[in-house]
Every structure is written in C-alpha cells, then in structure tokens.
C-alpha cells in the first residue's frame, strides 16, 4: 500500500500536510501529578504519553534493592492502555513493550548520574494513552521530562524523534528520496524508519527495525540529530517556563 510514496513526490507534502523536515505539534507539561516524585505529560501529534517517576528510593523487592554495587537501578514499566490504538485491545504487544522497556532502561542508566544513589531504585512508569507513531521517541522524551522534574541529575536532555526514508527501498531514483522527520502512525506502517535519541550532538539510542538502503542511513541520521535538537529546544522551553512559574 504505497500510499505516501506515490503522492509525496508530486507536491512534496506529506499525508498530514507537513514538509519533510517538520515536526508535529509537541505539547508537554511537567509536574502533572502531586503524588509522584516527578511526572510529565507529553503529546507528539496524536501520540500521548504520561510518565511518572518514583525515587530514587529503596527498592521494594528483596534482593534487587540496588542494582550493581554503588549504582542506582533504573526500572522501567510501560503500560499500554486498552483504548490507545484504533481498536480496543487488552494487553497490547508484550514483546514490543518489553523491548522498549529495556531500551529506556539502558539509555537512562548511562545518562543519569546513578553513582550518586547507591543501593536505590529509580522507577519510571509510562502510560501510553494514545498511539499514533513515534511511540519510543515519545516515551524517551516524556521520561526525560519526568526525570528532570524529579530532580535526578543527568548530563543533558535525552531527546528523540523518528526519521524515515521516503522512497521505498526498491526504487532507485535518489532525487526524490528526502528523509522524513517525525512520522505519524500511517507513515510508520509504510516507510522504513529509525528512532534516534540524542544527548546533545551524540547519538545515544538508535533503533532500526526495518530494511533501509545503506546510502540513505547517513542522511536519515543527519536529519534525526537535527530533529532531536529541535525537540530539545521545545522541551527546554517547557522546563524553563515551569521553573519561572513555580520555581
């Protein structure tokens, strides 16, 4: 169903009317929940995510109170709400969510200054309320905001976005194969894409689940890093306005 790939070269406009390098509307709030140590709410287009951070605190389960000697353990739990997709489903995609959990946990273990909190656990729980593409990217961005709200020191924002290669992998003309930034659900189904998470200029998370031609990857990465920079500016703005209001 090459819906996008057939229309795109004509007007250079995507399904929802964006150009190749435009992000969807990102709206975020921090400190949305009084009971948690840190929390955030993030909308990237129609993808909506709530993230709650508890800790650093002594872990609940015996035996895994802290992870390794002298470092905090980062536990991630992702719950996909039954009403989040087009059709209502109970317990959606266990394999997929556990992969995302692992991805977030490793990404934030290396980003946070976990050595400051030995023998403790930082638990991040994410509720996916509505999904429309760029799910992993939204989770990463929401978790970054919630961790900042919780006051856990980290070196820089970890921001993420998705990039696709617009031409299908078989076509050979490279003239119209712009990389596309920040995909929605429909585009994600059709195009090969990668999720990129960057700390400053450095790539920290990179997830590619589909086939894509070798020579396109570099362009995609360049656009992705640029997109992450813009997401960072938006998230930074959210944190700063919150600071001004309540800080």
């Amino acid at each position, binding site marked *: 169903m090459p819906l996008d790939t057939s229309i795109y070269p004509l007007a250079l406009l995507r399904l929802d009317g964006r150009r190749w390098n435009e992000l969807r509307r990102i709206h975020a709030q921090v400190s949305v*929940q*009084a009971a948690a140590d840190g929390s955030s709410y993030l909308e990237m287009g129609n993808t*909506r995510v709530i993230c709650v951070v508890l800790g650093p605190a002594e872990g609940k389960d015996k035996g895994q109170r802290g992870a390794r000697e002298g470092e905090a353990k980062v536990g991630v*739990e992702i719950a996909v709400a039954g009403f989040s997709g087009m059709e*209502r489903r109970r317990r959606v995609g266990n394999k997929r969510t556990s992969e995302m959990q692992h991805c977030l946990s490793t990404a934030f273990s290396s980003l946070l200054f976990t050595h400051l909190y030995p023998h403790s656990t930082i638990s991040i729980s994410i509720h996916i*309320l509505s999904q429309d593409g760029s799910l992993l990217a939204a989770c990463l961005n929401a978790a970054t905001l919630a961790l900042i709200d919780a006051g856990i020191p980290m070196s820089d924002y970890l921001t993420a976005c998705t990039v696709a290669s617009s031409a299908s992998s078989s076509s050979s003309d490279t003239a119209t194969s712009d990389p596309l930034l920040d995909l929605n659900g429909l585009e994600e189904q059709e195009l090969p894409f990668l999720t990129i998470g960057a700390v400053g200029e450095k790539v920290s998370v990179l997830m590619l689940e589909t086939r894509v031609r070798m020579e396109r990857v570099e362009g995609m990465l360049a656009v992705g890093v640029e997109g992450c920079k813009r997401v960072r500016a938006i998230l930074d703005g959210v944190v700063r306005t919150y600071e001004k209001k309540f800080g």
Partner: protein
Amino acid sequence: MPPSQAALVSLSPAELSYLRSTLLQVPPIRLDHTKGPKDFRSMRAEYDVLPGANGSARIALEDGLEALVGVKAEVEKSQWRPTPAGRASRLSVAAGDVEMKDGDEEDDGQGKGQVSWVEMSVEIPGFRDDDALPVFLASMLTESLLSSGELKDRLYINSRFHWKLYIDILLLSPALSYPLALLSMTTHLALLTSRLPALKSEKDEDPLFDDDWDASVPLYPKEKGKGTGSKPVDRPPVIVLAMAIGQNIIFDPCKEELAVADAVLAIACSSSKTSSTGSRIISIRTIDPPSHLTPPGVPNSMNSATGGVAPASSADALTQRELLATSGVWTPPRGGMKRGLIGQVVKMVVETGGVAEEVIDALQAIEVG
C-alpha cells in the same frame, strides 16, 4: 470485601487514638481542618482528553490520586436469540398469516440490551489484573452502571448488531486511599461526555454510520430545548464513600481517616427520575475499613514495664481490653454500623441538595462550562 493492602498507613497506636478523638468531636475536626464533614477533596477534572476514544475523562485529586478513563465503543454482531414476540411472529408467518407490524416498536431497544455488552477493566499500578482490589472495584462499578438497564438498551442497534462498550479505567498514581469514589466520578464524567456516531442505515440493514463527528449522538441523551438547562435525561450513577466514626459521619475520607473508621459505606446513587432535585439510591455496600487491621496499643496496666501486670492468658488479655475500651488506648474497632446511623447517611446522600445531587451536578457543570 477485603481491605486493600495499599490502603494501610503506618501510624502508631497513639497517633491513631489521637486522630480518632479529634474526629469524634462535634463537629469533627478532620485531618485537613479546613474541611467540614461533607466536604470532598478538591479536584481538577477534564474531559475529552483522548483523540481516539468515544469518551474520556481525567480527574486528579489534591492529594495526588489521579485516574483516567477511556470509553471505546465497537460494533459487534449479536447472537440471535429467540424472543417470545419474535417466535410468535415467525409462527404466524409460517401459518400464512402475514401481519405488518408497527416499525416504531421494533426499533427502540427496550429491554433488549445484554449485560455482556458493557465490559469494564480497572488497572491499578502494583496490582495484577486478577488481584482482589481491581476485580472488586470493577464489579462494583459495573453493577451500579448496569442496574438501571437503560444504558445497555441504548447499545442496541438492530436485531443483528449492537455496540460493545469498553470502559477502561486507569489509576495513574499509586492507590493512596481507597480509590472507589474517584474511579466512579471519573467514569461518570467519561460516560456523560461519550458520543456514538449517528446511525444512517435503517432497521435490520448492516449498520452504516454518519462519518461527521458533529452529527454524533451522546451516549446519555440530553433533553432538547429549554435554552440553558440542557440536562441529560438519564445520567450515569456515581458512588460516594461515607465513613462513620462514633456518631459522626464523614464523606470522602482520606487515607488516614479511613485508618480509624468504625465502618465505611459505598453508596451508589443516580439522579432521581421523578423530580428534578434529590437523587435515588442504587446500592449500598459496606467496605471493611483498614482500621480493622491496625495494631492495638498496650495500656500501662497491662504492661509490666510500666508497673502493670501482664495478662496471664490470651483470654485474660481479651477481657482486660474489653474493660479498657473507652480509656483512650487504641483498640481496633469491631462490629458494624447501627441502623440509625445508616439511615442518617442515606438521608444525607439522597435528600434535596444532598451529597449525591451536589456531586452529580458538579460533574455535569464541568461539561457545560
């Protein structure tokens, strides 16, 4: 029903005793001393928060308890079931006696709804699906929702199809206090603002819907006309939590107050049908308060360290405790609630301008304003 593990608070017997004595004052001094016995915790509520659901609502209480409800409706094929009327018409057709029926009678789904058309799930962080707390909460909420029967009849499309309503309740924060009242209020708001696409096909055709969302019909229909007062004809029920302590009745208790309660009642009520004010009771349930599990204090007279005499046997200890029940040393409350007190609670809930009417009107006002 069993108390939830999450509702346990770590207060010492002395603290519990102090809390109880302040709540026993007339009027009671609550933990949040600015609140009277009928005051609810302040809340922030919004509806239509999810783009992909038929209805949704989110309510956050001041103490951090937060719930989100999404309502999703899907068209499902009904199983054909023989009804007495249907069978009779079939027989008469078979006998060659064809009779034309009035179309109006067949189309409203009066009494045709089924309980299985509404499915509810409650998710609470830290609990599994099949743990006692989520299962009890879900069944209590479904029970009160289906009691009137009007909701399930409204899901009827035609003899072959119906709407299946999925109500998913998420508690976004840990279960700090007993979350029943919050979940019920959030569900109420979500259902009140739910809309179903308008039906374009007629009678027993395959259902075809108007794709214009502006033309959609609310799940709980509103009265037409009368300018500002667009009150819905029927509104979903709401559950309020009331707690008795001595002769005092306190509504919407917080976690610490529940820990010293004599008895807790969950009262499901909906707006009354006959008059525009007041409300009617749908069900009442007692809830085992977490106070039954608190540890008792040891009075000086029973403590050998403070010059008392330790009781020789456990039976002895029981009798001594019985005698000391009013001495101010904390003993977990036992027994239930007096009938007079239940009557008083019910009256406070259903009377004109009572608690139930206030809650339902407040939730209605969120949608209007």
